[in-house]
């Protein structure tokens, strides 16, 4: 685990074509400073996994607007303020893989837990299960779903210690703990990094074994 001095140092070395898991549900838990640093790396042809497809013109939306994302894997791209994605999608400049929200989380959980694939009841009989293997187990129907591995996970937590242990804040936790397990390299931005021993071990949500770099970005700016 490395404490990075700033987000640009933390993001150094991102390759073109990388699959990047990005935390957040809407703006809550979205690691905006890390996403901005990813944009500044200039890495292109990225596959981004996020629940949404960007809000407004900041963070993920700005990364999309910069033309650096080839494909997005998400559950809910269309929102009142997803105009950046909408325009790219309608002009065929971005590929969309739509995944039910629970399957999205479980596919990353499987990746992080070393599971080769799993049968999910979600989506059976719907267009999103077309072409997928179907099996009946104890009278219930399931479809086969494969893990989603990331080369990189960018997440936001509330506090980290110098061992990379993370605690989150309220519903900003959302995809963070799952994504942290599912990537080759996990980078967490936090409001504050504290010394080892300052986090109560009983309250740690993401153990440091899943975290490769942490970077302190300070408290949220107003309006973020």
């Amino acid at each position: 685990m490395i404490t990075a001095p700033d987000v640009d140092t933390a993001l150094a070395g991102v390759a073109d074509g990388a699959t990047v898991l990005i935390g957040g549900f809407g703006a809550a838990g979205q690691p905006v400073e890390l996403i901005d640093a990813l944009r500044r790396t200039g890495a292109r042809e990225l596959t981004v996994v996020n629940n949404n497809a960007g809000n407004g013109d900041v963070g993920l939306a700005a990364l999309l607007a910069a033309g650096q994302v080839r494909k997005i894997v998400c559950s809910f791209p269309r929102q009142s303020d997803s105009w950046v994605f909408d325009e790219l999608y309608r002009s065929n400049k971005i590929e969309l893989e739509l995944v039910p929200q629970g399957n999205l989380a479980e596919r990353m959980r499987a990746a992080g837990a070393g599971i080769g694939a799993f049968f999910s009841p979600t989506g059976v009989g719907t267009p999103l299960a077309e072409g997928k293997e179907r099996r009946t187990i104890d009278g219930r129907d399931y479809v086969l779903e494969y893990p989603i591995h990331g080369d990189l996970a960018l997440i936001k937590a509330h506090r980290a210690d110098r061992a990379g242990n993370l605690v989150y804040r309220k519903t900003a936790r959302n995809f963070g703990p799952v994504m942290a397990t599912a990537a080759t390299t996990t980078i967490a931005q936090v409001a504050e990094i504290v010394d080892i021993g300052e986090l109560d071990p009983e309250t740690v949500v993401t153990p440091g074994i899943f975290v490769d770099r942490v970077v302190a970005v300070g408290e949220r700016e107003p309006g973020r």
Partner: protein
Amino acid sequence: MTVEHPDHAPLDKTELARRVAADIPPGAYLNLGIGQPTTVADHLPADAGITLHTENGMLGMGRAARPDEVDPDLINAGKVPVIETPGASYFHHADSFAMMRGGHLDVCVLGAFQVSAAGDLANWHTGAPDAIPAVGGAMDLAIGAKQVFVMMTLFTRAGAAKLVRECTYPLTGLRCVSRVYTDHAVFAIGADGVSVEETFGLTLAELRSRLDVPVR
């Protein structure tokens, strides 16, 4: 046994939300879909011990936050700022959806474009070629909650019934809806077909004449 209220106007949105709320069992863990289902929360009895689940990672969700209570880290599935209630808990997405798929959530209330007589649900996509599809947690909720209640108008603006023999819109889940609450009638869907529990603004005979689905 159908209770007919032909002289009662069709239920307005508030009455419909109240009608749904009256059927939520005390002590239930409950998820309310985005939009109109969210308003059911306004009519739940405070002493019924009902716990609201929001799929972005919280049990014990409270009401919408007032301006001085807004915390950007505390939102509901519709991304509206909310408050927490005593006894609330937070968890990550894989746990949140395990609560659905694993059969721990008692009831969810969802909107719908169409419900079939077999309880198939269509509520995520109109299928229009220029529409950007978005599914969110709808498919997980539909097959995960122990009971799925649908809340919708019974007819489209053009007058077409939304309770149908077979859904023509893309499906969200198969055979998952158990009860349908509409402005004109409350339906129960079981293995033996569709029964009408109440009508509003029309008789059972009039209702039958406007539906393509056989109802008891």
